[in-house]
């Protein structure tokens, strides 16, 4: 499987994702934001970080970069796209995913491990997980508070477009274990066709049992199926 990771000035999770993908034998290429063409890709990953120093709004400037025009075209043709953290923010700024990531409710940058529950596994990204599985992921963001219109929120719930919700270690989903104020504890969403996933937690930081836990590995393994 061929993958491409888009690199912006200020990306800082690009190499972690490359290590995760290479561990599973993806043929991966790093693609600089100024490039105007994409290598042949089955998967495009937009990594976390602080592209362009989060100027204007997180992800707003990166969303207008050269390579994103290609990413948008390829994504609309059905290519798998994964945006993690700042990558999720960039995807919302391009319009590939609806909604927006607002400042965390408590105004604090959050860098910690959290639990998420798999709400929907019937998709390319989560088929190696069980439904209602509780996973430990890491979050590191200042703007992760997912917000969208009430119509779109209803659609996300009804059409099973929410793969992960924040929960506690037992899998209870409530406001107490919502770290950033996201609507309905949303940690990640799909587009209508489910070929584009945006999520705030970092699965690439959970790929080694010895270092951190390996709950993230199955997300990348799912893509190989």
């Amino acid at each position, binding site marked *: 499987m061929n993958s491409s990771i888009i690199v912006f000035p200020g990306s800082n999770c690009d190499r972690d994702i490359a290590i995760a993908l290479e561990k599973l034998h993806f043929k991966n290429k790093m693609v600089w934001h100024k490039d105007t063409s994409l290598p042949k890709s089955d998967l495009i990953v937009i990594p976390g970080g602080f592209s362009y120093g989060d100027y204007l709004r997180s992800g*707003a400037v990166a969303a207008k970069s050269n390579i994103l025009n290609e990413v948008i075209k390829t994504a609309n043709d059905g290519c798998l796209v994964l945006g993690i953290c700042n990558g999720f923010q960039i995807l919302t*700024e391009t319009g590939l995913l609806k*909604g*927006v990531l607002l*400042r*965390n*409710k408590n*105004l604090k940058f959050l860098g910690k491990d959290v639990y998420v529950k798999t709400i929907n596994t019937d998709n390319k990204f989560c088929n190696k997980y069980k439904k209602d599985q509780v996973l430990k992921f890491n979050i590191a963001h200042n703007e992760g508070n997912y*917000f969208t*219109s009430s119509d779109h929120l209803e659609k996300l719930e009804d059409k099973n477009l929410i793969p992960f919700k924040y929960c506690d270690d037992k899998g209870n989903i409530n406001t107490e274990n919502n770290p950033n104020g996201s609507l309905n504890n949303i940690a990640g969403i799909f587009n209508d066709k489910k070929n584009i996933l945006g999520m705030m937690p970092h699965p690439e930081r959970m790929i080694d049992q010895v270092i951190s836990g390996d709950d993230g590995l199955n997300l990348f393994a799912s893509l190989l199926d």
Partner: protein
Amino acid sequence: MKFSVKVTLKKDVLDPQGKVVQQTLHNMGMDTLNNLRQGKYFEIDINENNESKAQIKVEDMCKKLLVNLIIEDFEISKI
């Protein structure tokens, strides 16, 4: 030709930064403060002599980059 653009959060969008500023002003004894919302301000100088054409260009800049229309409103004025 110069324009200013005022960007504000839509009414229904929570403004946690504004809330903190409001609370701080309250704590400083500004009791009459009713409500406070925080926004952004841009000054744009544009090479165009026709005002309505210039206005359209600034509007385009707002819609394509400066403003996220899901959560923000904008107001353009000539300066």
